[in-house]
């Protein structure tokens, strides 16, 4: 026995595993890449975008209503773009949230399996349709409809864009909300039924509150998607440079402004820099939305944990 243990104590001594260390550091490098990319984006936007404020004061930039990139001197006021983004996002969210959450609740709680099995792929299908195709639909199919319905000069307006954006953010809202509802343990439902609650009461008082955090996150993600969407709004929103006062007016959200302007902008010129400045603003806005969404999720999670 004693001999065996002597042997053991020797063999327990550490071995040097070189490949293990090598792999470890390589993996770390890849982990860091995420930060590098993000910082890279930020750095580039700052480098190319900040010089824009040499031509125009921040006040003018943010609250100016006139965007004349080629006049001498050029003016870069983005208020109309910003307001357009605001209109489009708000209306899209207002349409998508009740529909999305309602649909998710139906799928997760009420629908028989057969209905769920057919509806879910359809929603996933919607998620897969590229934004350019949705833009096409808005351009060719929806805008005449809106034009007729509201008796407008053109159907290419904020409302049309918002409806398309609503459709495009629906899949996220539906799937994330449904997942959140499904994550509510079966035990809660059983407990509720066992106490003599009806199915609707169970959904309303137990499942939806239980999934609230997930649903909130879903909505945030939907908002994020609507803010950043480019092609659809570029094709559908109308592209007017004036500050929009009603959703039925043609308008030019920030993303569209960048996309439509960048092709003509001289590399390194003032307009180029101003567009980067808009991109910087967009970046910061989505950054903020995401951070808030994350915080909300965290707080919700913590609320029910110990």
């Amino acid at each position, binding site marked *: 026995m004693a001999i065996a243990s002597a042997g053991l104590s020797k063999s327990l001594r550490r071995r040097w595993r070189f490949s293990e260390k090598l792999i470890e550091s390589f*993996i770390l490098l890849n982990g860091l890449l995420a930060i590098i990319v993000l910082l890279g984006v930020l750095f*580039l936007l700052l480098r190319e975008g900040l010089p824009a404020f040499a031509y125009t004061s921040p006040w003018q930039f943010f609250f100016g209503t006139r965007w004349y990139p080629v006049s001498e001197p050029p003016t870069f006021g983005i208020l109309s773009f910003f307001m357009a983004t605001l209109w489009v996002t708000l209306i899209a969210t207002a349409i998508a949230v009740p529909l999305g959450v309602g649909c998710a609740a139906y799928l997760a709680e009420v629908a028989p399996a057969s209905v769920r099995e057919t509806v879910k792929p*359809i929603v996933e299908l919607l998620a897969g349709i590229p934004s350019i195709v949705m833009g096409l639909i808005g351009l060719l199919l929806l805008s005449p409809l809106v034009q007729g319905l509201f008796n407008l000069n053109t159907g290419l307006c904020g409302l049309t864009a918002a409806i398309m954006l609503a459709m495009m953010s629906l899949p996220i809202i539906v799937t994330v909300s449904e997942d959140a509802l499904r994550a509510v343990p079966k035990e809660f439902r059983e407990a509720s039924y066992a106490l003599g609650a009806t199915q609707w009461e169970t959904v309303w008082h137990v499942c939806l509150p239980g999934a609230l955090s997930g649903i909130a996150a879903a909505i945030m993600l939907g908002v994020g998607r609507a803010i950043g969407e480019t092609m659809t709004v570029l094709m559908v929103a109308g592209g007017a440079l004036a500050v929009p006062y009603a959703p039925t007016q043609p308008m030019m959200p920030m993303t569209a402004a960048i996309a439509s302007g960048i092709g003509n902008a001289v590399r390194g010129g003032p307009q180029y820099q101003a567009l980067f400045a808009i991109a910087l603003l967009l*970046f910061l806005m989505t950054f903020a939305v995401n951070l808030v969404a994350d915080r909300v999720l965290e707080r919700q999670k913590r609320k029910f944990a110990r």
Partner: protein
Amino acid sequence: MAALTISRRELTQRTAFSLLVLATAIVTVPVLFIIIYIVVNGAGALSWEFLTQAPSQAGKAGGIFPAIVGTFYLMLGTIIFSLPVGVLAGIYLTEYARANWLTRLINMAILNLAGVPSIVYGLFGLGLFVLAMKFGMSLLAASLTLACQALAMTITTSREAVIAVPREYREGSLAIGTTKWQTIRHVILPQALPGVITGAILAMSRAAGETAPILVVGAAFILPGLPTSPFDQFMALPYHLYTAAAHVPGMSKVTIWGIALVLLVVVLSFNSLAVFIRIRVRQRRFGS
């Protein structure tokens, strides 16, 4: 009295459920309509020629072959640049990262990368790959740009796939005296693989549909031939569709819907593949 209460509760329930059904219908019916509409209207444009010829007369005639090939090149480039990084970063975050500021920072970066608008990636690609690194308006620059955009997705899906491997497997493996890398290599990766692949396919499908970034970094509307090196310009379906629909006056509607149909088929078939894999894996894991 009791009967009355019950019936009121019953009534509430029926009303509420009807509203839910309505919402579901509003979500689904337009989707079906859109798909069917595109298929019906685009099918007329499809022909052997349309799929295998280069465009002519500013896209009004000829086919879209270079755009199809360009899109596949883009998908390939995207995945080559983003998948390995995504998987390794996912592994780093779940297996190696300690709960410290660095990890929090990385996670925040990923979270935000996913939310950055595609047009912003476009500008990033333009500034970095096209101009600073002098790749020019090229397939390489576009692939790298799309790869940066896909990174958030590949990292997140890989991370989720790795996290989904139960802790018990890790402990079970480590507890019989294997090294960490052996555990990752032989227990965790095989388990996470389907999830990783699903994520990768979705990222490719997403890349195929992206328009805004390539609009900025270098897609061309018409090119006579296929790109021969990564530094060549290229055509891509979404951009082709955009230009055809928005900037070519007198473009025939059938051609437009035809391009849309082809794009849709490419994107949706990849999506279906991902769904298929996911279902297969789920069956294998819980079945037998």
